[in-house]
């Protein structure tokens, strides 16, 4: 039971992470294609506020405050009564709304599969591809040292 709950939370968190990274237009486009319902009432927001970003002294030491970042969040209730939340960097309220609905639908076992395949999977594929491109572009700037032997001995 414990394990299943942990897996469930990990899955929900993974969806939230994907949505937080994704572009609003892309989520909206996939949503329109998916035929998923987008009816929901706002319980909170969408509202924009700040989070204070924390780092660690020396990289791994005691925490300190670095500065702030804008974050937009929303909480929605579906006609089914399911409640969903969203948080993401930036000020995109349309994205906050769709992401909160996605979170609410994901908690409904009958809808989870559709959210995963029609929304999360294509977003994840695009994000992974973008990350991989950046990674191999960065890797091309890695220095290969070679040694020049000079002199006789």
């Amino acid at each position, binding site marked *: 039971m414990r394990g299943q709950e942990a897996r469930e*939370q990990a899955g*929900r*968190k993974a969806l*939230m*992470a994907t949505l*937080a*990274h994704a572009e609003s237009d892309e989520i909206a486009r996939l949503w329109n294609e998916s035929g998923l319902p987008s009816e929901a009432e706002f319980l909170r927001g969408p*509202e*924009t*506020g*700040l*989070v*204070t*970003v*924390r*780092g*660690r*002294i*020396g*990289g*791994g*030491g*005691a*925490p*300190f*405050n*670095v*500065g*702030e*970042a*804008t*974050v937009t*969040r929303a*909480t929605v209730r579906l006609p089914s009564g399911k409640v969903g*939340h969203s*948080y*993401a*960097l*930036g*000020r995109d309220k349309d994205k906050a709304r769709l992401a909160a609905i996605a979170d609410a639908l994901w908690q409904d076992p009958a809808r989870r599969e559709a959210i995963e395949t029609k929304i999360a999977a294509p977003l994840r594929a695009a994000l992974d591809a973008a*990350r991989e*491109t*950046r*990674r*191999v*572009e*960065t*890797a*091309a*700037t*890695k*220095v290969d*040292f070679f040694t020049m032997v000079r002199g006789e001995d």
Partner: protein
Amino acid sequence: MYVAVKGGEAAIANAHRLLADRRRGDRSVPALRLDQIVEQLALGVDRVMSEGSLYDRELAALAVVQARGDMIEAIFLVRAYRTTLPRFGYTNPLDTGAMQVERRISATYKDLPGGQVLGPTFDYTHRLLDPELAAGAEVETPAQRPVEPEAMPRVSAILAHEGLIEADGEMPLDHVPGDITREPLQFPMARDIRLQALSRGDEGFLLALGYSTQRGYARNHPFVGEIRIGEVELELDVPELPFAVPLGAIRITECQMVNQFKGSAKAPPQFTRGYGLVFGQSERKAMAMALCDRALRAGELGEDIVAAAQDEEFVISHCDNVQATGFVEHLKLPHYVDFQAELGLVRRMRAEYEARENEDRAEEKREAAE
């Protein structure tokens, strides 16, 4: 008697209208879009985010346009905007070890896990102006090297096991990180609060102070242990969810400065460290911050405090360019009454001085005649 003077309303309104016109400039030139600034003046945007202390590229780009490219004015605009928003909380501390690295170099180790990765750097360019860029030439796509992903541990972690370098900065377990946006500055201050102030401090001011330490004012033999730039994930604990909610990623620059230290009454000979962490891609600022952080640890390490860069109150009180510009620029506001008062005072002092002079001269004449 106090007489209030009013006026200038029409002049001010027209000045702002004129400002809007001059900001737009020649109407036959296309207006800048924010995405152009975000994409093509990215490091300027990063500076505004870092010193404005607000990570939001689009807002920083808007501030740059609104300020006509005046960076400190743009930073001021961003700082002012911040105060209008509610605060949702403090993120969990970000993990620079898990960064998606876009640049990572070390001046202390040639061969380190993950290697030296140059990324999009100005280093090794010839600093020659490029006429092709002015002509809008097409730009090549980047080279790619498909290799297996490799872990890139922080250099500090590699150095640590010899015991010759101090650990990451620790605070007492019950220490709550201070927040200069909530509490007024108090001296002496803990290192965490200093780092917050330095992270949003003026790049030019910190650069000059860092430079001064290299030139011998608080000499401390620095090496760049590591600079890394890239995106790190942010997470926030919220009451409505049983896990830390992912917020997405921000780009940051981290600098680990390593300093030779001959030891003191308080600490044995070892390598000590200065730390820099700033929003965006800004390694000059991160390096300057790390140099200043180290210099400001003089008291903690039992070093003599002999130079400006080691003087906590001096550095921290003057590194904020919004405060600095506010106080310097307020001088141009009307001070008519203050000035009238001082004019009266100087007139009186001058009259007294001249009367004294005349008296002295008369005295000398009398003495000469006798």
